[in-house]
């Protein structure tokens, strides 16, 4: 039930037990999604994503509160929460997976590394496999930034869009995740 708390605790305690493990985390990750149709463009942002990234194994977890997505218009936000993702019933969206295409040694020096993220994305109580290309950037001050983009199809997650607004909402939603990690 309190997986996130346990994970964070583990993330804080484990490195002292196992020197080889290097973990990064944030509670201020940015997740943005965009729906573009000829009728209207809809964008929502959430800057309170939590994430833990284990450099030694590549394991990564991200969680967002669905209600924390902010839209330009109140009506869009209400429809999103009440009718589409049913955030009262399914308050969180999560991703659990691994990042591959880098070595822990790579990330000790500044640079940009192309990586692949593979895992399971859960939205609206439905879990689907997801593979996405991403970039890990180590800046000269040692800060680790991660960026990835992928497409989500509402129908894959059993999200039903009523006929009346079917043409206002894209069949493929672009999702962008930008995370600046702090070393634990």
């Amino acid at each position, binding site marked *: *039930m*309190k997986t*996130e*708390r346990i994970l*964070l*605790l583990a993330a*804080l305690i484990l490195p002292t037990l196992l020197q080889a493990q290097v973990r990064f985390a944030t*509670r201020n990750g940015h997740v943005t999604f965009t729906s573009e149709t000829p009728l209207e463009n809809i964008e929502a942002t959430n*800057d*309170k994503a*939590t994430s833990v990234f284990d450099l030694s194994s590549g394991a990564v977890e991200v*969680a*967002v*509160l*669905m*209600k*924390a997505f*902010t*839209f330009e*218009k*109140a*009506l869009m*936000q209400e429809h999103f*929460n009440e009718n589409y993702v049913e*955030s*009262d019933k399914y*308050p*969180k969206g999560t991703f659990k997976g691994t990042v591959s295409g880098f070595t822990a040694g790579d990330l000790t020096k500044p640079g940009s590394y192309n990586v692949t993220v593979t895992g399971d994305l859960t939205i609206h109580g439905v879990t689907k496999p997801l593979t996405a290309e991403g970039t890990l950037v180590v800046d000269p001050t040692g800060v680790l930034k991660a960026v990835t983009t992928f497409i989500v199809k509402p129908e894959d997650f059993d999200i039903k869009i009523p006929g009346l607004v079917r043409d206002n909402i894209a069949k493929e939603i672009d999702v962008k995740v930008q995370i600046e990690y702090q070393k634990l």
Partner: protein
Amino acid sequence: MRRTKLILLVLVALGAIAAGYGLWEYNRGLSDAGAEEPVARIEASALLQEFSADEAAANARFNGKAVQVTGIVKEVTAPAAGPTTVSLETGDPLSLVICESDDGRAAQLKAGNKVTLKGFCAGYNLDVLLQRCVIVE
């Protein structure tokens, strides 16, 4: 003939009112929690306790609803764009109550201040998040 014209005029007027309402509703912005009657008036530590003890029950009780929370300010961050974030102490170093607010007074708060805010609860993801908060006192 005059009667038909009158009916037409009334229909056009009704249509215009409906369209105007539709447009207003479509463009309605997000409102803060200022006018909402809170479902609970609670200390930050007790709010966190509710979520950590039984997340599903706390979700059902608080999520999407206005909650009034009182606590000691741990940190205030006011980014160039977007709302000010006021973090409240909970007695737990790993989990806070995070209040996002566009209330101009939020950025003036300092660590250690006691404050009461009212905002819409978005749920529990390490921290308890309240959005569109107003400062009550």
